[in-house]
């Protein structure tokens, strides 16, 4: 058997302040192997990957051995290390973010790697730029794209540039750090395709990092699950995805339910059994009350760069009392604009929003009264709470704005309903002291404190770790059961719709292309766009 490409031998990485990021990890990546590192944010997976090329901040202390192609990384001189970087191992950074220099054309950034390491093959800059065009062609980009600055490229294109850059010096090992995070599902599927094809064709060794098991399973043969700096489970990708044994792996896997699987329909949470006695959970739409919210022929235009952009294009929509409606679409489809217009945070260009049959008022006082009725839950609970306000102040904010009495009782009731019990214990806490899930519960409690008739939730779990996702979705179901509170849930995640919604509304380029009960739309999609969305759902990618 040949020597493994990469070995971590009992590696322990400590940051300044004694924070242990990686705690005794041993892992071998064989030549040509494809390994996925999975885990939630802060589990140490990125730290582990960056340690291969000694790219960690100086404050990090590394114990144990890291061996790349038979050579111990810690023993390399700076000169040797620089020579190894990119020629033996290259990294695909999360290009959608800021990994490209914003003021240089991308082709020069790719060529830079060639100028450093391959001056023999490509002696002058013209030769290097020709090579860059070839590399860009490998990732399906035209040479013209190479002349673009990073901000002129889409997220998917930038990610491909990152891949082309990693391939520049024909490295043995590619490390891909969250290469598709922040990309839309359709684009994610394209990027994964490109990566997959290149790895197979060139027999590369790949270490890929993601929080998304399904994404890893789409490319990697083997998956390693990490938690708190340790490896908790590893095995063949299909086996990890289909039959996880460790509790944490199960949580990660549950975040990507298989659409069509009845066991994940209107049931979420760590332990499906506990909810089974509420078989009446799936209140059918017909049995709910009348229409609470209605949108009639709504159009919203923006002025951007001196051009008119139509974000919402003649949309009709209605939400019944107690009904959970999932509004699904990619980023840029206009779904958030629609939600903000419904909440009166954005002026419509034409059309109407009606609440209980009455059109949305324009006057300040009347709008304020309306906002008591329909409440907003935002995507990132960390950002949607003022870091300086205590939980009590955050929940009481709405009560104070509307000058309601019994402030304390209302806060206690709202926190209890949001399952933050005993409520008094949380009064004095500030967001920083709470977990992500608790923070989102505080946001929900703040909404409940005003006894709303309906919720609008914009990607309520998108920024939460997989293990917390289930809790919050279960809470939404619970509120519907206990209070009859319906919600318009905006999401890019069809699995979420399958988890909790009664009805799915698919939005594409500002228009609603499909609208119907969940089972009908997701299992028997009619519109091409819905079909294409379903085709690239990560859980399907993993299983193909």
């Amino acid at each position, binding site marked *: 058997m040949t020597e493994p490409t990469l070995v971590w031998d009992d590696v322990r990485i400590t940051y300044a302040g004694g924070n242990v990021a990686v705690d005794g990890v041993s892992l071998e990546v064989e030549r040509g192997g494809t390994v996925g590192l999975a885990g939630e944010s802060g589990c140490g997976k990125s730290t582990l990957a960056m340690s291969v090329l000694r790219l960690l901040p100086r404050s990090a202390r590394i114990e144990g051995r890291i061996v790349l192609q038979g050579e111990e990384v810690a023993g390399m001189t700076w000169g040797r290390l*620089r020579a190894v970087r990119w020629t033996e191992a290259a990294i695909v950074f999360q290009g959608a973010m*800021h990994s490209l*220099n914003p*003021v240089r054309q991308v082709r020069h950034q790719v060529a830079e790697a060639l100028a450093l390491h391959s001056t023999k093959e490509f002696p002058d800059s013209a030769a290097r730029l020709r090579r860059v065009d070839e590399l860009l062609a490998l990732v399906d980009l035209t040479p013209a794209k190479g002349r673009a600055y990073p*901000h002129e490229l889409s997220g998917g294109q930038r990610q491909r540039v990152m891949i082309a850059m990693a391939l520049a010096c024909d490295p043995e090992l590619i490390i891909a750090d969250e290469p598709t995070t922040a990309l839309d599902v359709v684009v994610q599927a394209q990027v994964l395709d490109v990566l997959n094809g290149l790895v197979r064709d060139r027999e590369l060794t790949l270490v890929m990092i993601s929080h998304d098991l399904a994404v890893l399973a789409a490319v990697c043969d083997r998956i390693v699950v990490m938690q708190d700096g340790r490896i908790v489970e590893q095995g063949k990708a299909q086996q990890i995805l289909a039959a996880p044994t460790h509790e944490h792996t199960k949580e990660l896997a549950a975040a990507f339910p298989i659409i069509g699987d009845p066991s994940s329909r209107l049931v979420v949470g760590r332990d499906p059994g506990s909810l089974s006695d509420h078989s009446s959970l799936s209140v059918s739409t017909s049995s709910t009350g009348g229409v609470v919210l209605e949108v009639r022929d709504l159009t919203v235009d923006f002025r951007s*760069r001196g051009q008119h952009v139509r974000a919402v294009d003649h949309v009709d929509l209605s939400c019944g009392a107690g009904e959970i409606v999932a509004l699904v679409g990619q980023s840029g489809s206009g779904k958030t604009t629609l939600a903000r217009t419904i909440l009166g945070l954005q002026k419509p260009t034409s059309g109407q929003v009606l609440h209980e049959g009455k059109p949305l008022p324009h006057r300040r006082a009347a709008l304020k009264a309306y906002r008591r009725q329909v409440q907003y839950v935002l995507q990132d609970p960390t950002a949607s709470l003022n870091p300086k306000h205590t939980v009590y102040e955050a929940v009481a904010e709405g009560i104070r704005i509307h000058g309601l009495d019994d402030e304390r009782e209302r806060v206690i009731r709202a926190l209890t309903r949001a399952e933050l019990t005993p409520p008094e214990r949380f009064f004095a806490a500030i967001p920083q002291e709470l977990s992500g899930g608790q923070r989102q519960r505080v946001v929900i409690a703040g909404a409940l404190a005003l006894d709303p008739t309906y919720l609008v939730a914009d990607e309520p779990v998108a920024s939460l770790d997989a293990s917390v996702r289930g809790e919050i979705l279960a809470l939404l179901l619970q509120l519907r059961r206990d209070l009859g509170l319906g919600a318009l849930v905006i999401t890019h995640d069809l699995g979420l719709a399958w988890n909790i919604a009664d009805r799915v509304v698919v939005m594409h380029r500002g228009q609603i292309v499909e609208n119907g009960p969940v089972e009908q739309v997701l299992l028997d999609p009619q519109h091409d766009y819905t079909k294409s969305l379903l085709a690239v759902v990560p859980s399907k990618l993993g299983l193909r």
Partner: protein
Amino acid sequence: MTVIETVPADSEDTRGSSLPRYLALKAGGALISLALVVVLGFFMFRIIPGDPAINMTRGRQVSPGEVERLRQEMGLDQPLLVQFWRFVRDLFTGDLGTSYVYRRPVTELIGDYIGPTLLLTGTAAIISVVLGLWLGQKAAWRRGSWFDKIHTGVALVFWSVPTFWLGLLLLLVFGGGLGWFPTGGMSTAASTDTGIAHVLDVAHHLVLPVVTMVAVIYAQYLMVMRASVLEEMSADYLTTARAKGLREDLVRTRHAVPNALLPTVTLIFLTLGLLIAGTVTVETVFSWPGLGYLTYKGLSAPDFPLVQGTFVVFSAAVIVMNFIADLLYRVLDPRLKSS
């Protein structure tokens, strides 16, 4: 005049708009500022308490008849709006009134005195920009080192020194005490040198004023460049560059510095204008025959048309510099060019 260390925040409004639109917006803004300067330059001297004629003769013994004559001469017997209209009309024909001390048109005086000011500020600006930026990026890259500590420390001390006092000290030590440099003026009065000799003579006179200006202004460039580079130091694209195997000094010069320079450019141009205005004290100390010295003369007379004239010119210079800075930023930063 606090130390400006943050990136200009006003670009977000115009980000991505087309070039003509951007030009129109910025030029419009500059024109409004210029108009405000003119309005302020006129009304400040007339509306704020007292009789301008008396204000103007402050500190001098004048008879009531003389005041009356002055009032007529200045057109003060006319309604205020008529006065303003005349002022604006005259301004467009390049007429800023007549100086009382020099008995000459203010425009002519400014024309005579602007050359030395440009020479002084130009030299000082070039030296401080090069020195400040170079030291700044170096200090940021070696944050916490002795190099950094010493240079930021020295910069902060210079920043805390009143310009005129530093000038006085230099004059005391190198002019009066050691006699290495002349104590004032732009050239030796009696000399009839021409050609190279004259240039050297002027350069000799230039040293102390330039050192004074550089000492005060380079500190700000250093601090801004340092802050700007530090801002970029945690950027992800630097990790990319390091991962590619780039040497640390190349990571700095190829990636960090170009990005950090962009916000700094705006600031340099903004302070170039302020530099011109800051000549008032330096030129006064060194009797350098420039606009600042002229302003000082106007202040001590007091000579109101002269002060008014230099106020308009100084402000206009800063506004124009600021406008150039906006344009330059737009040209240099590819992100601001619309795709």
